[in-house]
Structures are given as structure tokens and as C-alpha cells.
């Protein structure tokens, strides 16, 4: 297959490119490099089946005939989407429409990378795909949440009205090599602090919980869904919960860091927990995550070490 991956120079997009190449496909990787990074795909530069295009998908574009469109372009970490608020809304709306138009034109299948943020600040735990979400449409995070909710609506509309063959994945917290160091979330913060020998900052008493999915599990789930016939949204994430304090201790342990843990007051907007209910993915795709936190962090350690070393040098 010839496959278009938008956001292919991003964290997840670049891992998706790797996996698709390994499966023998050819790739057109489109990215405007707003938050993507060429270093994520530097190793693919000489791969003849890989073509990079500096392309903003918010303008209509044509990459030639493709068989599958994976739309992964969007700022995704809170740090990024709060900084690039308008661009985030544009890529979810205009960008998704342009990508759907490419899929429609070439009768290609279409795959939307959506997010657990669609559930907003959920009133139901854990979240099943049938939950409609609880989103403040005018809150600061709405730029991402509503952008992705609109993208889902648009995808379903193209499926219903234009008969485009579509898939929607709702991605939960994912980590691994190539995660941005300044991602602003707990794993990159802890890894950075531990490797720099700084105190690990834990807000509140550290008893609040998070769940994280290792990137290879996430990609395996995405590919399983891509190869299925399911059009409705599917949660892909790791439901295992860790307290922030447990997470900090694992990081200290695997990095061998002598950093200490420093407690600070809980900020007001600290998001309440989201945890995927993955029974649909299990039943439908036979997929479930296999790599647990300690193992995943161990596999990410080398990347974080070099990223921290590079950041210090620059």
C-alpha cells in the first residue's frame, strides 16, 4: 500500500511510519513541523519507500494516489495546544476535512487519531466509547477537545454521506522514545528531572493516579484497528493505574538517580483522572497492552538520556 501519514514527524506519527514501513508499505509523511521534529524521522531519510513532505494539511493538498490516510497531525501535549490554540482548531477542522477529501478522491481508507480528551472532565470512570463526554466548550483546553470532537463528527459525516471507509481511535496517555522532553506531562517531567539530578516535583500528596500506555502497545492497537472493519471510536490505552508517587519512585529506581522527591501544592486545574475501558478493543481486536510502566520506562531510558544531554548542550 501507499500510505499517507499526516503528523508523521511527530511522536506517535513517526512510530506509526516505522511500523508501516516494517509491514512493507510505502509512506508519504506530511508534517508542517509546527510541533513535529525532523529528528524523529532522521533515520528514515535514506529509506526509498519513505517520502517526507513539508506540508500544512490545513491548506488543500494532493499527495497523489494513496490507499490509506492516517491523520495524526495535531499539537497534542497541553503545552503545545495551549500555545498553538488556533492552529490546533484549524488542523482538527480544516486539516481533517482536507485529509478526508484526499481519502474520498482516491477511495482510500481513512484513520483519525482522536483522543481521550473527547471525554473532557468525565463523570464516568473508567470511560467506555459510549460515554459522550463532559467538555467545557469555552475552557482553555477546549481548543484541543472540541477540535478532536469536531474531527470525529466530520469523519462520521464523511463515512455516512460520502461512504468513506473510516476508523477512529481514541488515544490515551502514551509515552516512549521521541516523546518531547518539554511535553509538560508527568513522565517527561520526572525523567528529565531524574536525569538532571533535580528534585522530582510531585503535586499534592502524590496519591492521584494516572495511566500510561507504552508507544509500541499503542501502535499495535492502532494497526489492529486500522485492519478491522470497525467504524465507531475505539479506546486504545493502558488501563493500569499508578499513583504519581509510585511513578516517581519507578523513575528514580530505573534511572538510578539520587534526586529527591519534592512535594508542592496541587494546582487548581490538575485534571481529574481518565482511565480507558478497553473491553471493546479486547473483544473486537483481540488487543491489549503488554508492556507495563517499569518495562516501558526502561525501554525509554536511552532516548531520555540522549535528549536530556542534547538539551543541556544546547
Amino acid at each position, binding site marked *: 500500500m501507499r500510505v499517507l501519514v499526516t503528523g508523521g514527524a511527530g511522536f506517535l506519527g513517526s512510530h506509526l511510519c516505522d511500523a508501516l514501513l516494517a509491514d512493507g508499505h510505502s509512506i508519504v509523511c506530511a508534517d*508542517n*513541523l*509546527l510541533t513535529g*521534529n525532523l529528528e524523529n524521522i532522521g533515520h528514515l531519510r535514506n529509506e526509498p519507500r519513505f517520502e*517526507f*513532505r*513539508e506540508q500544512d494539511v490545513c491548506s488543500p493538498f494532493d499527495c497523489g494516489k494513496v490507499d490509506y490516510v492516517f491523520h495524526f497531525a495535531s499539537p497534542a501535549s497541553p503545552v503545545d495546544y495551549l500555545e498553538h490554540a488556533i492552529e490546533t482548531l484549524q488542523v482538527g477542522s480544516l486539516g481533517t476535512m482536507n485529509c478526508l477529501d484526499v481519502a474520498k478522491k482516491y477511495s482510500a481508507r481513512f484513520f483519525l487519531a482522536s483522543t481521550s480528551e473527547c471525554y473532557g472532565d468525565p463523570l464516568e470512570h473508567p470511560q467506555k466509547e459510549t460515554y459522550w463526554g463532559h467538555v467545557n466548550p469555552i475552557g482553555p483546553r477546549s481548543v484541543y477537545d472540541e477540535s478532536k470532537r469536531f474531527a470525529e463528527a466530520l469523519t462520521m459525516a464523511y463515512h455516512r454521506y460520502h461512504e468513506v471507509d473510516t476508523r477512529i481511535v481514541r488515544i490515551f496517555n502514551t509515552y516512549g522514545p521521541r516523546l518531547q522532553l518539554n511535553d509538560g506531562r508527568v513522565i517527561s517531567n520526572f525523567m528529565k528531572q531524574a536525569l538532571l539530578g533535580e528534585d522530582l516535583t510531585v503535586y499534592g500528596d502524590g496519591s492521584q493516579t494516572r495511566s500510561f500506555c507504552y508507544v509500541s502497545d499503542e501502535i499495535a492497537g492502532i494497526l489492529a484497528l486500522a485492519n478491522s472493519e470497525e467504524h465507531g471510536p475505539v479506546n486504545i490505552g493502558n488501563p493500569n493505574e499508578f499513583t504519581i508517587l509510585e511513578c516517581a519512585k519507578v523513575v528514580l529506581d530505573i534511572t538510578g538517580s539520587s534526586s529527591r522527591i519534592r512535594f508542592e501544592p496541587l494546582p487548581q486545574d490538575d485534571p481529574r483522572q481518565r482511565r480507558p475501558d478497553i473491553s471493546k478493543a479486547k473483544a473486537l481486536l483481540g488487543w491489549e497492552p503488554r508492556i507495563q510502566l517499569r518495562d516501558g520506562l526502561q525501554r525509554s531510558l536511552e532516548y531520555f538520556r540522549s535528549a536530556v544531554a542534547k538539551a543541556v*548542550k*544546547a
Partner: protein
Amino acid sequence: MKVLITGGAGFIGSHLAERHLAMGDEVYVIDDLSTGSVANIQHLKVHPEFLYHIDSVNNVHLMAELVDLCDVIYHMAAAVGVRLILDSPVRTIETNIRGTEIVLSLAEVKRKRVLIASSSEVYGKQEQVPFREDDDLVLGATSKARWSYACSKAIDEFLAIAYWKEKNVPTVIARLFNTVGPRQTGRYGMVIPNFVVQALTDADIRVFGDGTQSRCFTHVNDAVDALVAVAAHPDANGQVFNVGSDHEITILELATKIKEMTGSKSRIVLVPYSTAYEEGFEDMMRRVPDVSKLNRLTGYRARVSLEDSLNSIIEDQRARLRERGTLKAVTGN
């Protein structure tokens, strides 16, 4: 570190590339060869850390990739030289402004450091020497094409400062004063290479006006020292720096010196500006930088003497002429 040099096949750009390679950095060059030359970077091509693209900075897609890859951008690409400005004013204005717009807007995405190469031309007809960075710019009428260069560079400076103030992109501006050295070509009206070639071939050394106008010449190695120092300095953001030497010499003295140093039989002749350029051509009598701001921030001082500069240029031009087989018996062989 990864460094992008636009106009990296140009005279100053190629020396800058050489320096960063020597510092152990990875150097990316983009140059459309409109005034640059592959010959300037021929010797760098073998270097594994040197990557170049023969392309225009107007290729936004390519530029977006290069800016994304690099930590620092030196925007040296410009339409330069008095001759070119008079002959192709549209190209001069558009190249200089559009290129800078593209570089700055791409650098904004991830707040990359940008050094914009400007010119002592922006001081225009200012008569009070030495020139300080916060002095008024005194430009001539828009009907006089020569001022379009100064004005386009002034717009570049405004843009760079605005990107720092409004969008927090770390920019710095270097106003280069008559930079000279090996690889500079006289094709675009640069005085020293022209005099040297004229002297080496025993042709008339053509001094424009009465030759009492003076300039300060900076060896390119000194200029590169300064560029590298300000580009790396965190306190330089949003600021303008004069880069040059304050050693002044009249053009007539310069012609005489070059004639002596080359042992040339050339005559020195005075050519009115109106013959050399266009009717009503305006030139500046003196152009002396005040480099105290640069010195305070970086400890910079020009180190290469004018004699050493001239020697290196005479050597360079001799080699080029010998290659082309046009060197007459001036060397005594």
C-alpha cells in the same frame, strides 16, 4: 550544534561555514548561486558535517525543513553590491525583504536563534562619524536606486527586532562594514578586489570621484569572529551591532597602497561617479563604525591589519588570475 547559513556559498557565508565546521558543528548551507559561487564551498564539500542545497530561500518547504533541523540560522543571503542594486533594483528589494520574512516566520515556530546580516549602507548619508547603532539613518530619495538596498536592509532590521519584541524569537542584527578577504569578487562593484585585479593586470586602477572618500575595511576572519560571538550571546537578542574595524583609509591611499604592494605598473585614474554609475549617484565620504557596543558585549576587537588583509587578497587574486591564465609578467616570471 547545527547551523544553517543562507547565502553560505557567498563570500562571508562560506568563511562562516568554514569556521563552524572547525568548531565541530554541523553546517547546512542554502544558496541559489545568484551572487554566491560553488567555488567558494568546493573545499568544504568533502567535509562529512557539511551539507548544502543549491536552492533559493524562497523555497519555503525546503527552508522549513532546514530551519527545523538547525539550532542557529545565519541569514546571509542577500542581493549585494552597488552594481547589482543599480542594475536590478526589483530583484534587490524583493530578495532582501522576502528572504528575511521567510527566515523569520519559520524561525518563529520553534523560536530558533536568527542572525540577520545587515550593512553599514543603512547609515546612508549620515555624516557624523563614527556611526553608532542608535544613530539616525539618513537615506536619499526613492528615485535614487542605490538607497533601495539600505532601505530593504532597514526593513529587515525592523522585522528582526519586531520578531523579538512581539513574538519572542531570539534575533540579532549585524551591520557589516566593508568586509574584505579571499574569495571576494569584484563583479558586484567591490572596491578592493577590483583594484587588486586592475593592479595585477597592469590595467588602470579606476578610482571613483576624487578618491578622498574613505572606508574602513574589515578582514573576513575578524567579521566571522564577531558574527559567531553575537549569534551565541544570550544578551544580544533584539539588538543591532556594528561589525567592522575603525581603521580608516581614503580610496586614493588604498589604490596607491595596492599599486605599491603588487609592484604594479598601473596608472591610477580618477573616474567621475556619473560615468561609473548613473547621473546623480550619491556616495558617502566617510564610513566609520563605532564598535564599542560589540566590544562591551563580546570583548571583540579587529585583529587583522589592513596590510595583512591586502596581502591575503592579492595572493588570492593572483591564484585566480593564474588559473585563468591572464596574469601578466607582474610576478617577474
